[in-house]
């Protein structure tokens, strides 16, 4: 051992990156250790679910609707080239159910919910409210983190189904305006190609995304550094990191579900 202690193992930034991954992992494990321990804060979970829905319902609805409509519009010319415009409803439905709805919901929620969880817990950390809970013999992890992670894991799948419905509606509107297809005919042809596996995969995805958004937001907020800029940083990295993880999860889940499809 050298006499002078080395300050870092690799470079300082690389070290802190590894440390952050490790700390995140510890936080993740702590969630599972604490989730069934002690008193369950049902009231707080419901309150958080409501807050999540309330915050993002309008935005997700609008984005979903526009996505469905624009996607349909843009797909029409290429199908028309082959004289296959009648396939439009089922093509659009597959795209929405398999990929778009879950991703749109997740990305909007990461921006809206992830940042607000990060900022809220961050400011509670900075103003010592989390310490105050701790000294009053209440477990702040259980009350703040567990409830928010569970709430986003529950609420985001629900928002995903809502987004699917609204996107399909947008697609229907575009189709009915152009081709004059009836509501029933549209949805009959839309659901022709959708399998149980598609819906199940979407559900699994959005549960994973919901959990990710919740836990990343909580981790960033709970461990926010002191000072007001800590709050902003927590909110910002909550969004960036959860989006990054969502794309990685997307790739993995799609690979796994394709494995089952064959």
């Amino acid at each position, binding site marked *: 051992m050298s006499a002078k202690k080395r300050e870092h193992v690799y470079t300082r930034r690389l070290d802190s990156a590894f440390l952050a991954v490790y700390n995140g992992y510890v936080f993740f494990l702590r969630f599972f250790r604490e989730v069934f321990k002690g*008193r369950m804060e049902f009231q707080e979970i419901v309150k958080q679910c409501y807050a999540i829905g309330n915050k993002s319902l309008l935005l997700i609805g609008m984005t979903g609707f526009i996505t469905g409509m624009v996607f349909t519009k843009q797909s029409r010319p290429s199908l028309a080239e082959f004289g296959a415009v009648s396939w439009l409803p089922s093509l659009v439905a597959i795209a929405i159910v398999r990929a778009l709805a879950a991703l749109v919901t997740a990305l909007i929620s990461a921006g809206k919910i992830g940042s607000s969880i990060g900022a*809220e817990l961050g400011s*509670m950390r900075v*103003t*010592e*409210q989390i*310490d*105050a*809970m*701790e*000294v*009053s*013999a*209440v477990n702040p992890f259980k*009350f703040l983190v567990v409830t928010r992670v569970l709430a986003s894991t529950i609420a985001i799948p629900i928002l995903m189904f809502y987004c699917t419905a609204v996107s399909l509606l947008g697609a229907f509107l575009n189709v009915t305006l152009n081709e004059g297809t009836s509501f029933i005919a549209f949805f009959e042809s839309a659901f022709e190609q959708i399998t149980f596996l598609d819906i199940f995969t979407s559900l699994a995805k959005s549960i994973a995304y919901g959990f990710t958004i919740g836990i990343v937001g909580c981790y960033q907020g709970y461990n926010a550094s002191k000072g007001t800029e800590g709050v902003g940083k927590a909110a910002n990295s909550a969004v960036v990191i959860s989006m990054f993880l969502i794309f990685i999860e997307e790739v993995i889940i799609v690979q796994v579900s394709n494995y089952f499809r064959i």
Partner: protein
Amino acid sequence: MEEVNQPEAPVINIQDLHKSFGSLHVLRGVDLRVEKGENVVVLGRSGTGKSVLIKIIAGLLKQDRGDCLVLGQEVSTLNQKELRDLRMKIGFSFQNSALYDSMTVRENLEFPLVRNVANLTRAEINEQVETVLDAVGLLQTINQVPSELSGGQRKRIGIARTLILQPEIMLYDEPTAGLDPITCLEINELINEVKEKYHTSSIIITHDLTCARATGDKIAMLLDGQFLKQGTFEEVFNTEEERIKSFYDYNFIQ
């Protein structure tokens, strides 16, 4: 007191406590005893580690070296359950009040109560909330949220929130900082009332010598990470030590 004169164990007993943050050596061998029913005032300039000291007592930070015995238990070695039981007996009033700003005053006060005391009826909860709120004289704010309160009111609600668990030890972090002189006097009175009504032993951190004189049975002066001098107000300030004198002179400059 007509009791047999046997030495009672101190409520808080700190010996040779050290704490550093990186290269910043904040506490360098702190010794402090708080006897039962005693108000100890800790004085010291900004950044000398007063808040760090009481955070170690409450188990929010861990010391690097030295002993910190609270009610006979070494805080740093307690497990989660033991720490929780100890914290039920400690009231911690934060420097910035640390009220939960998403909750009303009533919810702030209920928060520790319903989570630590099992099987309370709604009526009992309300009664206890109103009792402590009355003790700090702010019954009318019960349905307000913290952002609607003044700094002095927040401080008092913060104290009420700690009283609701009926602590044996109170730790006040700058209870009068940033308040006008009259509100300061009210807070000083409140601290003394708390001591009488709830039979607490306290540590009061302050820069304010009026507060120190009004509330402290014993004064301890934190300088360079150590308690330079401990004793009654007169004992501490009746000194030729330059740094203590300057602290005194500055406070009573008028």
